[in-house]
């Protein structure tokens, strides 16, 4: 037991995927099993870490024993732990799904291509996981840059995995954007180091003062990260990249990868640059979010391809996250907004992954993903449709889903601080979301005279999608524990319980 309590679990969440990456690269035949095992192991490590954090509060781990400023510190507070948990859960589900999806029996096109995808999916995904976990744990902005690159390269390669024209073009665009983004971030890091001679987030938070250096650094880093997390109008690369990848990859990219860079954004705005950010800047990000919600939703209502619809919904949903910046500027409701935003990430991760997997099943069964042609399929795959529906419920924010709880908190923050514009926007966004979800679901009820010729969809693939969707809904009923975790070491002060309990401010 004591071992469980003392072992440095956070290290293993990085080392384990790295080792798995090596092994899956060397032993291709065993790759699927290795991958699933690694995902499970990672989940266990994260669970142990979460237990540690819940018991003993935030953890700091000086790698190499040097400690700041010379060395690199890892840090696991409530937020990091939640993010790790998110990646772990999604990771397990997607791994199980992928083990089947890339198997020879379910080769959509020729066997060679299927083998090729399988051979490279696993190591790439393992490195992606390592990058994610490393990123969530890093308290060192230069190390954040390294993890960003690790993440970016694996993400791009995965996006290109399908190999057809659209995927390659999308991946190329993605790579350029991602590199530009990280370069901007790196310059910001350099500026900060030049000014304060440290790259440790916590130390910098204490030192950073408003001024040309911090403003420029903030601007550069924010710009780069907005690009990477596809916030309107820098979202252009996302829909093709996510829509043309294999289903498990789309799920990973949409559910986790974009969140990673947004997570750094949160760390910067609410921790490192706490004293530097200004209300106008925050409102500007809010406006971007608003535009994202509207634009993404309208595109989702327009496009003809299912996976593209889901991808655009990601663009829209990322908009909600940006509403945090203006909402949290009011100290009274800051923590409510903060919790809402983080919970939104979790709910969206589950829902979006489920949705992409379900969409993948439909595309797999039909051999295409034109929404217009879905009539027969949805009735052939009731479970996947259910998954899609449940995920949709959470995306729309209907009770009792996780999305609802998140929206509830965001709305509460908006109304309690009298920021009505954002509140109304969120409601409008929900209705639009309902619109594009129904675009798909209506096909579950259309009459089909002739049964279409369909590929068989393996049980595993249907159940993993359904499982994630159910989780997305259940998140609404078990919010207490995650939010308790979130309080630990939260950079946003829980300005009096009043903010949570309600009461005008």
């Amino acid at each position, binding site marked *: 037991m004591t071992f469980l309590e003392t072992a440095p679990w956070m290290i293993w969440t990085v080392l384990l995927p790295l080792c798995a990456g090596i092994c899956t690269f060397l032993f291709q035949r065993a790759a699927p099993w290795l991958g699933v095992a690694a995902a499970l192991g990672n989940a266990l490590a994260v669970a142990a870490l979460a237990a540690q954090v819940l018991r003993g509060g935030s953890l700091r781990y000086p790698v190499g024993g040097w400690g700041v400023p010379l060395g690199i510190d890892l840090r696991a507070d409530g937020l990091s732990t939640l993010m790790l948990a998110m990646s772990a859960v999604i990771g397990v589900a997607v791994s199980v799904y992928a083990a089947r999806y890339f198997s020879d029996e379910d080769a959509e096109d020729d066997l060679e291509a299927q083998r090729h995808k399988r051979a490279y999916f696993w190591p790439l995904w393992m490195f992606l996981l390592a990058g994610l976990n490393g990123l969530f744990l890093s308290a060192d902005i230069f190390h954040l840059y390294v993890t960003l690159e690790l993440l970016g390269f694996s993400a791009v390669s995965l996006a290109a995995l399908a190999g057809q024209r659209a995927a390659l073009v999308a991946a190329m665009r993605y790579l350029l954007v991602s590199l530009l983004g990280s370069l901007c971030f790196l310059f910001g890091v350099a500026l900060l180091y030049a000014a304060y001679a440290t790259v440790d987030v916590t130390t910098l938070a204490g030192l950073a003062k408003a001024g040309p250096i911090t403003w420029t650094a903030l601007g550069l880093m924010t710009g780069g990260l907005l690009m990477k997390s596809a916030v309107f109008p820098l979202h252009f690369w996302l829909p093709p990249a996510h829509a043309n990848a294999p289903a498990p990859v789309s799920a990973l990219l949409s559910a986790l990868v974009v969140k990673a860079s947004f997570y750094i954004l949160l760390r910067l705005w609410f921790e490192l640059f706490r004293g530097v950010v200004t209300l106008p800047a925050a409102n500007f990000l809010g406006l971007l979010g608003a535009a994202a919600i509207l634009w993404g939703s309208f595109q989702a209502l327009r496009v003809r391809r299912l996976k593209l619809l889901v991808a655009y919904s990601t663009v829209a949903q990322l908009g909600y996250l940006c509403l945090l910046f203006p909402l949290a500027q009011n100290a009274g409701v800051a923590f409510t907004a903060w919790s809402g935003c983080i919970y939104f990430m979790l709910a969206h991760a589950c829902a979006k992954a489920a949705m992409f997997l379900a969409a993948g099943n439909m595309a797999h069964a039909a051999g295409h993903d034109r929404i217009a042609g879905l009539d027969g399929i949805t009735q052939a795959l*009731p479970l996947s449709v259910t998954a899609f529906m449940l995920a949709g*419920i959470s995306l*729309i924010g*209907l*009770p*009792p889903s996780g999305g*609802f*709880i998140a929206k*509830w*908190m965001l*709305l*509460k923050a908006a*109304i*309690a601080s009298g920021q009505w514009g954002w*509140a*109304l926007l969120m*409601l409008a966004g*929900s*209705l639009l979301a*309902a619109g594009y979800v*129904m675009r798909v679901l*209506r096909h*579950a*009820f*259309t*009459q089909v005279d002739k049964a279409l010729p369909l590929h068989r969809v393996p049980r595993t693939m249907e159940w993993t999608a359904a499982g994630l969707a159910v989780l997305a809904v259940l998140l*609404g*009923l078990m*919010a*207490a524990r995650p*939010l308790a975790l979130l309080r630990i070491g939260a950079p946003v002060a829980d300005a009096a*319980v009043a903010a*949570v*309990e*309600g*009461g*005008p401010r």
Partner: protein
Amino acid sequence: MNLDHWLLVFILLSSFTTGLIIFFLDEEAHRLRTFLNLLGASLKVILVGAMIAGVHSNHVYESRLTLLPGLDLVLRADAMSVLFVALSSVLWLVTTLYAVGYLEGAPHRSRFFGFFSICVSATTGVALSGNLITFLIFYELLTLSTYPLVAHRGTEKALKAGRNYLIYTLSGGALLLLATVWLHTLAGPVEFSLGGKLGQAALEHGTELTIIFALLIAGLGVKAALVPLHGWLPQAMVAPAPVSALLHAVAVVKAGAFGIVRVVYDLYGVRTAQYLGVLPPLAAVAAFTIVYGSARALFQDDLKRRLAFSTVSQVSFIVLGTAIFGPVAALGGLVHLVHQGLMKITLFFCAGNLAEALGVHKVSEMAGVGKRMPWTMAAFTIGALGMIGVPPLAGFVSKWYLGTGAVLAGDYWVLAVLAVSSALNAAYLLPILHAAWFQEQQGPWPREETRGRWETRGMLLLPPLITAGLVLGAGLLANAPFSPLGWVRLISDREYGL
């Protein structure tokens, strides 16, 4: 975790689990599915029965689950919720019987009955909600579980009706959510309770609470089909007859009306509402809806469409009764919650039978139908006369108390409304009866089913007869202790603290 706690949960689960299981049944497992349906339904009735006794002796059942700090999911059974639960569970049992018969041989029955059960669970949840947020949750669940039923037939028309249903109800839900959050920020977590808990807040934030009230009513008015939010209801009649019964009598419309009642009595408290001066406008809207609905019904040739508009008008009697200050009017409104349900479901069952057995959908095709289907039309007649308010039927009781209540409250104009609406009711229902009984059949029926032992399938014939009987009973035995009226008296006494 005592028994009370579990009782409520069981009442919810009795239909919810049935629904979930049914989803996974394969299409051909008719017997098992029917068995499960009836099992769940009767189980619910029994459990509710057990609860009624307790509530009557002032016992309050409650169970809660914390979603967020300061945000609880609360199930509570007080007199008011029992009224609605009892209604919906009894009618669900009957409707299930009817639906089993009605959908014989139709496709996608597992899906249908699955959502059917979920829908009723949602209604039960609405009835048992102990605070606004819980209410909201089940209210939205109701919306979601009803869409598949409305769109069930899968024709373009059905899908369009379903889409509009969603557009209306989800927008309503959005308003409701907005109001709920706002109220939450102003007054913290407010629970439903006799006389309401907002008296203090009303003094501090009068204007806000008035706006919130408007939002709430707008959100609930969509389902309660208050004009001008009623648009979805007439379209939704493309759904199969059992669904119409569900929409109009058991679940959806009722949930809206019940919500309004809850908001006025147990959230704001009728006195606070009076103090805020929000009741007269509400009464006005209700009155207008009553007249408008009846007037529109007059010009519908399609039978179900005519009935749909009559629902629009009839449901507003409930709202009207609530909006008039005073225990007697409240009596009229609340009791109509039950009576309208009984009468309207009878009418829809009969309409369904006509369509099934004879393919008769239009009033103009009904000449002489009484001779062909005497039992069905007898039930229809009872329902129709009840609607018009002919003593000693249920409808009369409601209108009587509404009228006297209005007089006591000094709102004489209500009498006019009642008179006009009754006249209109007569105008759009009596011709049907006349055609059915006193006219000769012209030509063959549009699509006659081969005649069986009875005028139509037994499972279709029994339900309307039962409900018609209830209509009769509710009127004749109005003064019996456990009659709807008796129970409602209990409620209004408690609400007005008499």
